[in-house]
């Protein structure tokens, strides 16, 4: 029985009409009518300004929007069909949209866009988030120019962010990626990034699309895979990262996408991190001060409360996952008063590694293991916020480096447990 294609007949027909292109800009969406119009107009302006001679297309993979998102994306097209407008372009610019099944899932959206880019023989592809309302036309140039001019395979963004933005990245993804895989980039889990057609085609051929990492956390998986596969990486400073004031941050979802993906990668790339990985270069162009220091409003007490509460309530679950010593340490930590609370870097590294081992052995359901990490991360976040509250950008960088060193020190333990020697 033939495999079902990710590209519908109608979409293939649209791709046929687009034909060979130089640039694809992919936009995965789901009910993003509030912001996507502004984003694609900025993308279009960027293409017209910086790549007026290149053949380009905007491709939207939508997860089932009902708010007119797709129409907003298609409105960005420039062709001789539309009535005369004040936009002057040398060439036709297609902007097409398709709805994929089993959505919304960013991984499936990415799969669709990669497949389309491959069919269109795109030389370069940029992915942008439909929520990036701070996106400016220059971002397109900064993402794609390294691919075109410098022959880079993967261009990751660098944003100007608040120093406490991306805590999960700083405390989990960044140290693990650096220590286990040898690469340190500011945004290992990007939402706006670019890659070469060659990298896209090779990534498309990976056998991940029927697995969890083909649905969630795919961007992180791609970054890891590209770094391990010795593709040429680069970072490009874009500007301020869009912050949505009203969107609740789904920590459980974020944990699934980060910890889940990382832990799965340990199985797939066991031989890489067992050895001492080489440092993967990722030069940064135009990187200004990427951290803004305006004061933030954060409820640290709530983090502490949820940590202690979580440790208490999830005790039987932690018993299945952690070693006795780590489990006892966490219980002791949960009983300490707030003013003396300190979830040290070492303990955190150990916690993460033991969770990784539990995930590898699947001592309980893997998704449950990932969920169980959430209250512990809150505790770690509390300590991180406390330690860096008054810190300057440089001081915070040093603290993060200290965290990475803790992960490095605990690595032998991880290796022993993984190989069953402990």
């Amino acid at each position, binding site marked *: 029985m033939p495999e079902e294609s990710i590209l519908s007949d109608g979409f293939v027909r649209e791709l046929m009409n687009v034909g060979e292109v130089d640039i694809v800009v992919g936009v995965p969406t789901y009910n993003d009518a509030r912001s996507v119009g502004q984003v694609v107009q900025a993308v279009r302006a960027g293409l017209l300004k910086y790549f*007026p001679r290149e053949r380009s297309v905007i491709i939207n993979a939508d997860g089932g929007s009902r708010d007119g998102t797709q129409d907003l994306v298609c409105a960005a097209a420039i062709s001789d069909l539309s009535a005369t407008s004040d936009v002057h372009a*040398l060439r*036709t610019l297609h902007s097409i949209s398709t709805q994929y099944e089993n959505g919304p899932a960013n991984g499936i959206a990415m799969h669709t866009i990669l497949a389309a880019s491959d069919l269109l023989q795109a030389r370069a592809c940029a992915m942008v988030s439909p929520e990036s309302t701070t996106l400016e036309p220059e971002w397109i140039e900064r993402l794609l120019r390294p691919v075109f001019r410098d022959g880079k395979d993967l261009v990751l963004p660098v944003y100007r962010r608040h120093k406490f933005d991306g805590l999960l990245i700083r405390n989990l993804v960044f140290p693990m990626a650096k220590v286990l895989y040898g690469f340190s980039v500011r945004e290992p889990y990007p939402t706006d990034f670019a890659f070469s057609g060659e990298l896209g085609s090779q990534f498309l051929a990976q056998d991940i699309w029927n697995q969890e990492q083909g649905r969630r956390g795919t961007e992180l998986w791609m970054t890891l895979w590209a770094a391990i596969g010795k593709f040429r990486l680069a970072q490009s400073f874009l500007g301020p990262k869009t912050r949505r004031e009203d969107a609740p941050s789904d920590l459980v979802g974020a944990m699934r996408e980060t910890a889940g993906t990382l832990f799965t990668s340990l199985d797939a790339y066991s031989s890489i991190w067992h050895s001492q990985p080489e440092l993967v270069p990722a030069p940064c162009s135009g990187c200004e001060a990427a951290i803004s220091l305006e004061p933030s409003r954060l409820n640290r007490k709530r983090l502490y409360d949820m940590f202690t509460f979580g440790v208490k309530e999830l005790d039987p679950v932690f018993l299945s996952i952690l070693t006795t010593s780590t489990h006892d340490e966490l219980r002791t930590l949960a009983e300490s008063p707030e003013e003396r609370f300190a979830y040290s870097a070492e303990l955190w590294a150990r916690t993460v590694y033991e969770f990784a081992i539990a995930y590898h052995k699947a001592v309980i359901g893997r998704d449950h293991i990932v969920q169980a990490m959430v209250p512990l991360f809150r505790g770690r976040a509390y300590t991180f916020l406390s330690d860096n509250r008054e810190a300057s950008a440089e001081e915070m960088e040093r603290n993060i480096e200290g965290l990475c060193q803790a992960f490095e020190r605990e690595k032998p333990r991880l290796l022993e447990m993984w190989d069953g020697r402990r």
Partner: protein
Amino acid sequence: MATQDSLWYKDAIIYQVHVRAFYDSSGDGNGDFRGLAQKLDYLQELGVTVIWLMPFFPSPLRDDGYDISDYRSVNPTYGTLDDFKAFLEAAHQRGIRVIIEMVMNHTSDQHPWFQESRSSRNNPKRDWYVWSDSDTRYKGTRIIFLDTELSNWAWDPVSKQYYWHRFFSHQPDLNYDNPQVFEEMWQIMKFWAEMGVDAFRLDAVPYLVEREGTNCENLPETHHIIKELRARLDKEFPGRMLLAEANQWPTDLRAYFGNGDEFHMAFHFPLMPRMFMALKLEDRKPITEILKQTPEIPEGCQWCLFLRNHDELTLEMVTDMERDYMYDEYAKDKAMRLNLGIRRRLAPLLDNDRRKIELMNGLLMSLPGTPIIYYGDEIGMGDNVNLGDRHGVRTPMQWDGSWNGGFSPADPEALYSPLMLNPVYGFQAINVQSQKRFDHSLLSWMKRLIRVRKATPTLGRGSIQFLYPANHRVLAYMRKLGNETILAVNNLSSKAQPVELDLKQYKGNILVEMFGRNIFPRIGDLPYLLTLGPYEFYWFRLRRI
């Protein structure tokens, strides 16, 4: 010539030729009228119905004949007036009409009128030209020959005043505010019309009149002059045609048709560079957009379409971005660039790619308008940018592989211009004689193309309706006249393309391909799928049986 059909120019196939470049019968190294007359059979066989002669009047030849010093005679190098009359007679016998140049805007500074005018400020002909004490009048008027002229005013040391010139400084502009100028020009036109000339190409029409505070182009007074000229021509010489040379945007060009009481035809200048642009971009957008902006013209009027001519491929009527693109794609060598244009012939512009040459000629013959073929392009002649100015596209016609390419018996050093010699475009590689031998030569193909075009009045006189298939690399349109409908589909891309055409309103028609006359599937409810090879085009006649 007695004319049955006053709209003959709508069905015409025009061939632009320079007498000097075509065929030398006298052996002095220059083409002449006797030589041209000898080659009329060739032109008749090609299928040409009208010959447009570049200026053959007496001239110091500092602008290849567009600097005229005597309007009522023939440059002795090309022959005599009797030679011209004989040529005209021979052309008419073969059913070929003749267009000559009327350079109304300016004369050579060697013309007796100017010599008189400059001789003193009181001379009766002083006012035949535009004089000024200062060179600050008519500020804001653009300079056309940017590469050579710094100003539209030139200082005359004789009469110690400035005179106005929109082109070279040795081409002073005539002053049409003086009615005598107009009357004299009319008499000149009458002179040639009485001889039998069928049509006049009025050179540099937009610049006839100047007014302070304007850009001195397309002024209402210019249109009055044209109207008057047309009225007199229609009255005294019905069936003759006026062709405007006005390098303007379509909306400005429209004015030159008036209400059917000015020019019969005008060159569609803005379309031409966009055809080349569309080919490089592999995108029909430049063509469809300029044609969308092209206004409707009066019933008896017609656009003139061309790919190349004796001038540079003008890029005046494009944006700066488009010009940069054209320069980068078509004139990488800066020596090819001149006066906001590109001085190259058709074949070199298209990389001598036969498929591209065929496609462009296919577009020329199927878009709405009368096509003009520049001499030599029907065999794919090359150019020589080293000859300076625009002489590189005006090299001798290549007839065969023999002495001087069969152009002239003279010594090669005596030729008015060197021949093309390189292995790709040289006369031994590209010439009429060798291409006549083969059915698959460019010349043979052009003959077939012209034959099909002439057999299809719809292509000359019909309306146009663009189809906008989703594949932007394919340009498709319907041409309709009465009961006949033609579908033209053109692949602008270097790669094979599929295209689905919405032909629902023509459901039930069978497509008949017009060159091979094979039938294609009948049009049904579904989009009509066609696949085209690189640069391929189809012409279909729709038949309902």
